């Protein structure tokens, strides 16, 4: 009798047990991307639905949520079929309010465990600091800290569009970041985890910018964030971004073009390895920096028809490439140091590490101090291979 009772209890507990507050995965909207725009600017466009739904006419944030359309059929190669994703937008004062507005409009609650990317409009970042905008996602336990943060010069919600229904725009953005080994114009990914630290440190930094047109996207330069205010103050172009990645040593595998002086014919150098060093100097209270770049690579394209031996071609090309890099560096530094007067490369880091005492003296107004500092650079380029042509006979 006792045994039977025990067995019964065990049986019942296996049947009745389960997760306390479980939700079926089919009944959840899996969010994969978020775009945050300036609510004032998009108010006109989005009026139709949000005006009826709330008493406020406009809000600070217009947030677009992209989630996976689980019921969609797989589109065929001709572009037929349903879109794999759905975008929903809402206008409101805060992120959390906006998410709850979605609950008034969609049948399934949104969850953020799989959010891969957050795109913030540059215009919005000029008005509101990134700490405020990201606060909700940093506080919430759903969004992971590995989530990527990007800036968009145009409306951020357009970056979550695509013409091809088979493409999920959030995943496309994420995939492009992984191409960093093919291009010198992609920054190290800025994740929510790093945003937390950056937004509390006083140093300035860059956020990768996404350009968008008609459902197509392109990584194009970067937005400059001033460390003191955490607001965006401007952009640097793709070419200038190469200058930055050269200095930081993150330019892994980007092609650097140079042009032959007489004929104007191009030759391209592909970076194989790059070692960059920023060396701070403090002499009698005066700070200066040396940049040393040491790179080896391949001559990957050469339009000039040359009968000369490979050593000669190499030394000529090396010289040209070096000049080209110097030009890029000069242009980049002029832009960031003289024009925007911010240190986005990380000179402050080197000073902090090598000369902590000097750093403590200047750290409160570093960007202004930095703008006046002399920076010298020396570049070494070595061609170690020519691909499958021009080999030594």
């Amino acid at each position, binding site marked *: 009798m006792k045994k039977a009772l025990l067995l019964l209890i065990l049986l019942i507990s296996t049947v009745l047990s389960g997760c*306390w507050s479980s939700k079926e995965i089919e009944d959840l909207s899996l969010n994969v991307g978020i775009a945050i725009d300036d609510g004032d600017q998009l108010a006109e466009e989005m009026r139709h639905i949000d005006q009826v739904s709330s008493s406020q006419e406009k809000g600070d944030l217009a947030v677009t949520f992209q989630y996976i359309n689980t019921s969609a059929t797989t589109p065929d190669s001709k572009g037929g079929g349903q879109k794999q994703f759905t975008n929903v937008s809402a206008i409101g004062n805060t992120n959390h309010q906006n998410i709850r507005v979605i609950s008034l409009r969609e049948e399934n609650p949104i969850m953020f465990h799989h959010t891969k990317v957050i795109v913030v409009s540059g215009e919005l970042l000029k008005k509101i600091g990134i700490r405020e905008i990201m606060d909700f996602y940093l506080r919430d336990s759903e969004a*992971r*800290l590995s989530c990527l943060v990007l800036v968009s010069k145009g409306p951020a919600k357009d970056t979550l569009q695509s013409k091809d229904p088979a493409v999920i725009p959030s995943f496309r953005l994420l995939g492009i970041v992984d191409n960093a080994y093919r291009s010198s114009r992609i920054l190290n990914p800025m994740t929510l985890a790093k945003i937390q*630290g950056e937004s*509390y440190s006083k140093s300035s930094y860059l956020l990768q910018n996404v350009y968008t047109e008609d459902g197509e996207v392109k990584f194009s330069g970067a937005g400059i964030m001033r460390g003191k205010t955490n607001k965006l103050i401007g952009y640097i172009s793709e070419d200038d971004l190469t200058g930055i990645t050269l200095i930081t040593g993150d330019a892994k595998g980007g092609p650097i073009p140079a042009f032959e002086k007489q004929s104007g014919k191009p030759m391209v150098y592909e970076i194989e390895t790059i070692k960059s060093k920023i060396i701070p100097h403090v002499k009698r209270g005066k700070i200066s920096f040396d940049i040393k770049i040491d790179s080896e690579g391949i001559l990957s394209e050469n339009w000039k028809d040359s009968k000369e031996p490979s050593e000669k071609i190499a030394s000529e090309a090396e010289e040209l490439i070096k000049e080209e890099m110097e030009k890029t560096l000069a242009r980049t530094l002029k832009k960031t140091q003289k024009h925007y007067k911010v240190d986005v490369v990380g000179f402050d880091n080197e000073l902090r590490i*090598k000369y902590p005492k000097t750093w403590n003296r200047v750290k409160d107004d570093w960007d202004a101090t930095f703008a006046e500092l002399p920076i010298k650079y020396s570049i070494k380029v070595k061609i170690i291979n020519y691909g499958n042509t021009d080999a030594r006979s």
Partner: protein
Amino acid sequence: MLMNNRNKITTVQATIFTSSYILASGILTLPRTVVAVVKTPDAWLSVLIGGCIAIVLGVIMVKLSQCYPGKTIYQYVNILIGNWAGKTYGILLVIYFVVLSAYEVRTLSDVTSYMILEGTPAWAISMPFIWIGYYLLQGWITSLARLFEIVFPISVAVFLLVILMSTKSFEMDNLRPFLGEGIQPVLKGLTKTVFAYIGFESMLFLVAYMEKPEKAVKSTIFGIGIPILFYVITMVAVIAALSIDGVVHRTWPTLDLIRSYEMKGLLFERFESFLLVIWSMQIFSTFCITYFVAFLGISQMFNIKTQKVLLGLLPFLFLISMTPRTIDEVFSLGDILGKSAIILFGFIPLPLLILAKWKGRVR
């Protein structure tokens, strides 16, 4: 009855016992609490030095316990400093262990309800936890030790795996400069880091149950050494990934370290649930030990039957764990516990040891 050979534990078990006791709720918040005081990337050094201090304190307690073979602190403190003072110290210990035990339950239910079981009421998480602990303690110290023997290697393996996988977000610059502002901030951090090794007091009780009590020093050194290694690795990885500016603003920085990366192409992409699992097991270990030690105190000091004490403590554990209302109150309870631990196990054992040695010589 309690002293037969079946109830003895081996040296290895004692080592794992101590390690399991030390590693608990602290590891998820340690980087924040230490960096908040130290404010330089050298915080890990402070953790290392704090560990060495803990070892010294641990060895003092071993020496003290070795003066009275086969007796726990509750039993020999009476002989040492007289009945009244001894009882007072014993009762303070019991109160401390009961509250610490409840505190572990509370952190567990807080973190799990926030991170994994959103919507599940706190009592539904902590009650089964407490009951299972009760069930385990039916098997006395040996079943505790055997459980830890199984759980601990798993914890070590999983922990090292998830921390080492974070190397992708490892940035050396966040750890430099080394001692840029001198040793001063590191020493300031010691006030926090010694707390992290609460649990080194296990030797006040364990020596009595060891098969070879003469090896207790060795098992203390290893028992505290393993947590030191854990803590230093955690500190280095967390600071390198999140930077000191980021660490101080995260509530659970260690968990955030695991949340800051995804492994593509592996069977699993994200590993925070793994960390939470081993962390829950470690909290369970610490909970059981403190529960056990509290019960041991009451039953040895007042000669009450095992079962009654074990059952009688259950409601207290639950109620105390439910007392703090906000997360701030939980953390300040942790602070109070840390401070009382320093008084109870930092300052008192050394005079006791000197007294014991002196008495021994007189005799």
